């Protein structure tokens, strides 16, 4: 199993551009999450999903959108990139079947200039 994979690893965006961060897991996990990690701030939850077709906002959802059309994929969309979205983005998943260990992807480092 590859676990949780994220693409791209790095990206530089100009202000106002849009992009999609991809996240895929091959563990048949129901629950998936997007976090952002800012220096000295820990990880903050952006959006989460408890199954295909079901998503909900986390702590810092503004400026982002998500969709969950399949169990495997949970893309994160930035519509109008702003410098405040410069961060490292992590995707994670759990099975939701009694164990709450989150499995993390390697992260995407995004810079908006």
């Amino acid at each position, binding site marked *: 199993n590859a676990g949780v994979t994220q693409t791209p690893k790095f990206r530089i965006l100009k202000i106002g551009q849009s992009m999609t961060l991809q996240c895929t897991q091959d563990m048949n996990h129901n629950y998936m999450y997007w976090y952002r990690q800012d220096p*000295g701030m*820990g990880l903050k*939850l952006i959006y*989460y999903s408890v199954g295909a077709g079901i998503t909900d906002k986390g*702590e810092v959802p503004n400026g982002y959108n998500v969709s969950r059309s399949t169990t495997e994929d949970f893309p994160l969309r930035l519509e109008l990139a702003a410098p405040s979205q410069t961060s490292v983005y992590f995707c994670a998943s*759990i099975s*939701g079947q009694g164990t709450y*260990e*989150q499995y*993390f992807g390697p992260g995407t480092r995004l810079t908006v200039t």
Partner: protein
Amino acid sequence: AQRVTQPEKLLSVFKGAPVELKCNYSYSGSPELFWYVQYSRQRLQLLLRHISRESIKGFTADLNKGETSFHLKKPFAQEEDSAMYYCALMEGSWGKLQFGAGTQVVVTP
């Protein structure tokens, strides 16, 4: 609102010395707490969860509800323990985690 506090940004210890990483939380219900670790160039991974009461890589963590703490301890630090450590609190029933700011541990020989 739930909150997780890790007061130390950086902890520098000598190899063989004890290490303790502090974590305090505020939560109105019965908390479920975790320690996650990120080694250099690796992804974040689970180290401990409080309900399992395990000792992983020599680390232990005890939940103290009276002091609302979940400190991580190891009696003899090793160089391979150098990493970033995050305390996390699970909120609600959907597995969502609230993380502390993290503590960078550096173990010097």
